[in-house]
């Protein structure tokens, strides 16, 4: 949560990757505090924009460097603000805040981990896989999507993960089916101790349930609109059970986006 900065970032590259957009920014100071799971809150529409809310996106990668450092996000343009972002030209200047929020918690021991990613939300799991491998954890990755164009990072994943399984609804890449269908068997076969997941709430809910049944911890990164990124506006709340058993409205941008899967009250979220 600490170490977040506000910087005027310059667009270095903005590329279409399948159904998604991959944006790389020169953003000094963001990489230093980056942990997998943290967020970047981006203004859209330029200085005279009529759009007042930030778009808060999971950070794909961040690299510190002598010339300032870069930060990358991968997203699907689903509304006008994101469509604007998908069309920005190199050297466009964007006001960004980051890294924000609570990252994925890493195991202290080298234990088998299963990472479940869906669509572009899978992007931060690649940096997570590297961190887990540094800690000598076995990393088994399940990447799911509707079709090939919506699978993100399958090639990169093969570099950092111990094993990678791709599943698409239409079978256009990998096996046909859903990550949730195969997950229980994978957890048993890999003797998973921790399951990390990023994707829509329905997937996260399914992962949390499967992890619980298997007796593994789950760490789920929720994706809901976060209009400010700083925790101020409280528009991004998710019901989460505290250690005291009391359900509270937790802010995804500040108290999350990563929550223990067994602590999130998924029904209202994934409805």
């Amino acid at each position, binding site marked *: 949560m600490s170490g977040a900065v506000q910087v005027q970032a310059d667009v270095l590259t903005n590329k279409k990757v399948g159904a998604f957009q991959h944006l790389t920014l020169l953003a000094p100071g963001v990489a230093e505090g980056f942990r997998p799971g943290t967020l970047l809150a981006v203004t859209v529409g330029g200085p005279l924009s009529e759009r007042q809310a930030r778009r808060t996106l999971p950070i794909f990668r961040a690299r510190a460097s002598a010339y300032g450092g870069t930060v990358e996000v991968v997203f699907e343009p689903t509304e006008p*603000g994101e469509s604007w972002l998908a069309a920005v030209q190199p050297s466009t200047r964007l006001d960004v805040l980051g890294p924000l929020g609570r990252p994925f918690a890493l195991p202290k021991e080298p234990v088998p981990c299963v990472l479940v990613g869906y669509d572009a939300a899978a992007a931060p799991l690649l940096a997570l896989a590297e961190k887990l491998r540094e800690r000598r954890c076995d990393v088994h990755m399940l990447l799911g999507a509707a079709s090939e164009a919506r699978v993100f990072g399958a090639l990169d994943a093969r570099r950092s993960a111990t094993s990678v399984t791709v599943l698409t609804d239409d079978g256009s890449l990998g096996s046909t089916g859903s990550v949730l269908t195969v997950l229980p068997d994978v957890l048993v076969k890999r003797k998973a101790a921790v399951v990390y997941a990023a994707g829509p709430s329905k997937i996260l809910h399914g992962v949390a349930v499967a992890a619980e049944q298997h007796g593994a911890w789950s760490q789920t990164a929720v994706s809901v609109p976060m209009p400010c990124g700083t925790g101020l506006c*409280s528009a991004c709340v998710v019901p989460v059970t505290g250690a005291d058993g009391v359900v509270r*409205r937790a802010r995804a941008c*500040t108290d999350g986006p990563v929550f223990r899967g067994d602590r999130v009250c998924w029904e209202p979220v994934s409805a």
Partner: protein
Amino acid sequence: MITTLSTTLGDLTLPTPVMTAAGCGGPELGRFVDLTTLGASVTRTITLDPLEGPASRRFAETPSGILTDLGMENPGLQAFLAVDLPELAKQQVRTIVSVAGHRLADYAEIARRAGGAPGVTGLEVCFLDEDPLAAARALSVVRRDAPPGVAVLAKLPMGPGLLDLARELSSCGADALVLGLPLMGLVVDPTTLAAFRGGLAGPATAPLALDAVWRVHELLPDVPLVGVGGIRSGSDALAMLAAGATAVQVGAAVLRDPTAAHRVQLELAALLDPRGLKPADVVGIAHRGGLT
């Protein structure tokens, strides 16, 4: 540069006329901006008992604005005094506590306990109801029970009853009237056709807030006003002063820029200084034909 911005609201003297609006200057922003340089920071609205906001949608983006419905979510007076307020006091932020109540006894208790808490500069009473007599009674109770030296501000809804309400409240011992609470707006999701209703904030509301300040200043030229609505820049703040506000609050702009209030203050100073003007020199000047 900021030394020229000193501003007086009734018995309250602030180093600058720029505050953050209710709920828009929380300790969350402390890591991006120095809130201690601001005139004051107004907390989210606190009620006696905790209120849980809606579990469903709370936010929508509209042309040059936002709609929010937080259901006045707050931890209640007790938890606020125990947790939130000490955090603000630690950051040495000049704090005005926004408060709301249902019964007169609520107002009395909130005025006593919040007003008497260490580090509280003032109370801003948030009136959702337009009934002038009920509001006047509540405001009188807050003024009576708030400790001496604690400023009392009244934030008014901007509906058709604005002038009546302003006239009524101006005689109840408030140091300033805050104009005003957001008007309601509605969006309909183009896919699901579900509606979402919330308070409209952001630049879209600037002309409405300016007009409210203009009309109330015309009616009650001696009552200090705080203008809030759509302020993003020093020149927005200057316009609000010219329309009749003695101070301004920066609200929704902090979503886009957490340093917005601080920046507005610097920009305001940069607009006033070269002309040798202090904020008080321009208050209501638009009613006198502007700078001549």
